[in-house]
């Protein structure tokens, strides 16, 4: 795995690494990707229909609303203000 790919993947997962961490991980990942690459030898194609569990529309949850949670419980593990989650200012 090259450094550019590594950096792109890290960005996708929102992770940062120190140089040492990165170098270790690069080595590990290259080795693991070697293992993962063996699946390419299997001459198979995924068929979504084979995974069908035969659930039909009429078996789905009925559309009834129920009381929500108390706002305080929803926010109990978060930094919050005015009953909202606090996020650093998002500039669009």
């Amino acid at each position: 795995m090259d450094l550019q790919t590594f950096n792109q993947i890290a960005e996708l997962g929102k992770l940062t690494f120190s140089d040492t961490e990165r170098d270790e991980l690069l080595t590990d990942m290259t080795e693991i990707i070697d293992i993962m690459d063996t699946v390419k030898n299997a001459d198979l194609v995924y068929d979504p229909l084979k995974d069908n569990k035969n659930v039909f529309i009429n078996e789905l949850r009925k559309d009834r609303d129920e009381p929500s949670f108390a706002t305080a419980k929803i926010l109990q593990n978060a930094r919050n203000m005015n009953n909202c989650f606090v996020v650093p200012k998002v500039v669009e």
Partner: protein
Amino acid sequence: MNLTELSLRQMRSALDKKEISSAELTQSYLDNIKKTDAKIESYVTVCEEAAMEQANAAQERINANEVSPLTGIPLAIKDNICTEGVRTTCASRMLEDFIPPYNATVMEKLNNENAVMLGKTSMDEFAMGSTTQTAYEKKTKNPYDLEKVPGGSSGGSAAAVSAMLAPAALGSDTGGSIRQPSSFCGVTGLKPTYARVSRYGLIAFASSLDQIGPIARSAEDCGYLLNRVSGFDPHDGTSMHMAVPDFTAKCGQGVKGLKIALPKEFFEDGATEFVRKTVLSAAEKLKAMGAELVECSMPALKYAVPAYFLISSAEAASNLARFDGIKYGHRSEKGSTYGELIMNSRSEGFGREVKRRIMLGNYALSSGYYDAYYGKACALRQEIREEYNKIFETADVILTPTAPRTAFGINENITDPKMIYYSDICTVTVNIASLPAISTTCGYDESGMPVGMSIIGKMWDEETIIGAADAFEKTFTRIPAKGVC
């Protein structure tokens, strides 16, 4: 009467006959925890006060003769199962202070019966690993040898049961996380059929593979506990409307006429000679008891580990994306923008193994790689399922080693990821194929470490594998863990 040596059924009977109280029973376990858990480190959180309160509440029900099977019986719960008001950490710095505002469905079920929760057990961080050494706080030790790993990821649950710190526990199994630590710690662990037990409230590692299941000191106890947590759950869209039979129905009935398949690939690669011999001699023993051994093959086993890692890492990368420090979990002090804050929170909150899997998962899913990796892994999953179906055409159950080798040393310092990942080869196909499997001890190696064998069943047929494991257990004398004595 040694309270901590009773089976769940014996406890039930002793409680109902008022020979013991739930408080006494609970206290005896809390005493054991106090005495030895400093060495074992199986619990992340011990709920001493709450447990005694629950025991007293349970006693009122017992006194009123309004009991359910688990009323007043103490249990340990893996720390990735959400418990309202009780810290649920996934053994991660990320969730060090996370207090769920809701209960997992399995907890609702246990609470409705007034079962007693002794505490939350340690695990590999976010259930990723097979050593319990990636835990942020409590790196659990093997009760048979404190220098050795208890296995993982449900190492805390397995070690607690093994060390008499809980009569039974709930764990979770994504690629062997119940069976392998049960094997390492010399106890019995059962991974139910996928969708048998609700996953609601189980902090997800890999959604299509995760399943909650029991770890106990016998197959019968596993069945007894599994009965209490199984069933359709309207909060889990993947759980199934399947009848929940008495899982212990086949206990005590032996294995006469049971067709046991031995897929040769499981005994060829990876497994040490000692493990191979031990499991094969257990098979011979079962044969002597009236079972029929069937030879079979699973050619796709060579793809099982990579397919498992692709699927589990991809799902994990997505499942763990929600941990951003905003809604819950570790929030970095650094970072002035949203992007910086979540990047720092995640980088500080997750350990190395978790980050590695997130990286792999995102790699496997990223554009340009999806078909070659994830798509192929899903095709392999279908192939492995078909191979299992074929074996089950001529066999009732399948017997394999649970792990290629017995518990290894904490300081053995296995850094080769290849080595670590292939240690899962015996267990992952069961998750890939959604099957139930039970691991029970079938021997001890030269240093006294337990060897586990796995009995794999057909979909929804936990009864048969519990019955088979029970039959074996009744002929096998376990050696108690010495690390705690």
